[in-house]
């Protein structure tokens, strides 16, 4: 504990400077009002995440499993990882999608790590919400949909409710009261994995998914 004591001691002995009050975020927030109508928010989210190389497909609460099966088949996906205990996971399993093998994430990663890394073509997870400003998806992985589902498979499908769009990360954190209930891991994902580390040339599929595909679930069967 002496390193701790020494470091804190040095910091506490340092002179006290000008008062630095808790920063006022009001002016910044005032410059970022919520987008008035849901359609504009959605359009902005869509434009931004598509610019980041993600695909977005419109669907409904009933039709998305069939859309997922069609997209998976078109992309040559044979094995699709899903969370069997989530609501949408159960819906997907019940739909018995043709031509794709559903693999449940139902045991600790240690028990099947090699299979996860080598044999899974794609995954499907839900998103908590999304961010219009940066075209981002918010995921809170949990026991139903563990962290690696959105990272290891080469294709990541994400089911997003179209009405859950915030203007920016701060708006999402505030509306969803993150500070009072942080999960062990929260993620904000803005496109497929990428790198520009070789001569500033953008390449997708660095270590995470090569493709990020958003299934935008509209309420009441409505289309945008």
């Amino acid at each position, binding site marked *: 504990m002496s390193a701790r004591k020494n470091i*804190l001691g040095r910091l506490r002995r340092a002179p006290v400077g000008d008062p630095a009050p*808790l920063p006022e975020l009001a002016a910044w927030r005032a410059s970022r009002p919520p987008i008035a109508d849901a359609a504009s928010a959605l359009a902005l989210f869509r434009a931004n995440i598509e610019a980041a190389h993600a695909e977005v497909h419109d669907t409904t609460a009933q039709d998305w499993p069939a859309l997922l099966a069609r997209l998976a088949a078109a992309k040559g996906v044979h094995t699709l990882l899903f969370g069997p205990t989530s609501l949408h996971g159960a819906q997907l399993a019940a739909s018995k999608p043709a031509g794709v093998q559903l693999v449940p994430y139902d045991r600790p990663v240690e028990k099947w790590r090699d299979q996860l890394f080598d044999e899974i073509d794609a995954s499907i997870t839900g998103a908590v919400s999304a961010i219009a400003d940066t075209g981002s998806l918010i995921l809170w992985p949990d026991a139903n949909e563990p962290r690696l589902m959105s990272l290891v498979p080469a294709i990541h499908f994400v089911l997003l409710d179209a009405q859950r769009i915030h203007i920016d990360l701060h708006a999402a954190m505030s509306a969803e009261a993150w500070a009072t209930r942080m999960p062990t891991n929260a993620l904000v994902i803005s496109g497929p994995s990428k790198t520009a580390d070789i001569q500033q040339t953008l390449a997708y*599929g660095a270590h995470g998914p090569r493709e990020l595909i958003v299934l935008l679930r509209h309420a009441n069967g409505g289309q945008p």
Partner: protein
Amino acid sequence: MSQPVHFHAAADFADRSLAAVNDAGLRRNFRSAMDYLQTKRRAQFTDDGELELLRDLGQAIRRHALANLPDLLEQLEARLTANGVVVHWAETPAAANAVVLEIAARTDAKRFVKGKSMVSEEVGLNHALEAAGIEALETDMGEYIVQLAGEAPSHIIMPAIHKTRQQIGELFAARLPGVAYTENVDALISIGREVLRRKFAEADIGISGVNFAVAETGTLFLVENEGNGRMCTTVPRIHIAITGIEKVVAKLEHVAALNSLLPRSATGQAVETYQNFITGPRQADELDGPDEVHLILLDNGRSQAYADLQLRATLQCIRCGACMNHCPVYARIGGHAYGTTYPGPIGAIISPHLLGLDAAYPLVFASTLCHACVEVCPVRIPITDILIRLRNEAQARPGSADATLRGSGAGRKTLVSTIWRAWSLVYSRLRLYRLTSWFMSRGRALSPIEQGAWTRSRTPLVPAPKRLRDLIKERGK
């Protein structure tokens, strides 16, 4: 895979920068990279009003964090501990490495994967691990490339910025078994992906840095584009994060504000691909994530900067690299010439605290004081004022009130300080000043032709034939 140990900057900074400016290929690589990054940043900040508002906010958040640093560190530690994260404190690089080695020994860990972490470079973690027979593999594509080449990063955000794709293609072909030469970037990235994927699956321990640590919630915030950072913090059984004590912020919402500056200032992206908030290890019902999460809080000279109210602003830094991207000196000599973990303007003002001013003082003179770094800094660090202060420290008389830092006075030269002392003596006495200036203008023919560094690329300084006061007197006639 060996990397050069930290070499101290003082010894041969001038030689290294001379070699760098004469390396046409290196000059080309940096020039195009800096132009690219500057253009991208500009495109992100098209609204000056928004930018200035955000910079004010970024500065206020960081200043608030520093003003309350000891309290926030204690709060961070308490929250993290309650969340199940083990917090370690390290005063020196050796102490930080010892923490990692202890964890490795206790768990019999032999394989490490590393996400990008400049603090791990600062402490020389890879060397400490190698010396203990542990493989520490860099997994950020740029870091992987420089590790494969046996080099150090030349930029804090884009480590392999000094290399062309042709050089990387040759490197891969030479060092990776069964890999043929290609200069196709997608193919090169795919090669890296395949090699490293297996390593993630097999690793015992993952190492990462931290972009911000949130005291309010006990959250470690990490950003990246590739997904290797998430691999390192999620797949291995143990995750060890290492960061400087200054990286703490008070509130979770401060992260949202700072991260609207960080990627836009750094690489000119609106946002990183992955923002990763880690608030604890795997819970009993979870199926993945590390069983153990550790945080190492490193001092290594930061408390020296903290103790001085002017130099404390150095610790506001959020490590975006915008100062180096806009620095005319960095753009011409590149990162390696500095010889320090952190190059460029921020490197020049932080390194004296990490290494001692005696080791780092040449860097504080490697600036034109053009102010470009100050103009782009997202948290408004007065970099040029701090550079001038450190120049004074470097030339201060040891033991005097102006010598306050470890290594102050190391840049003092007897001839130079004698000249300035004489000047100060003359300039503060009116009669002596008139007499001296009269002699100097009359004796101008005796001025030396060789005037050290000045005359290397300039004509010699010669006093005017008539003093200003003589000219004014003549005009009055």
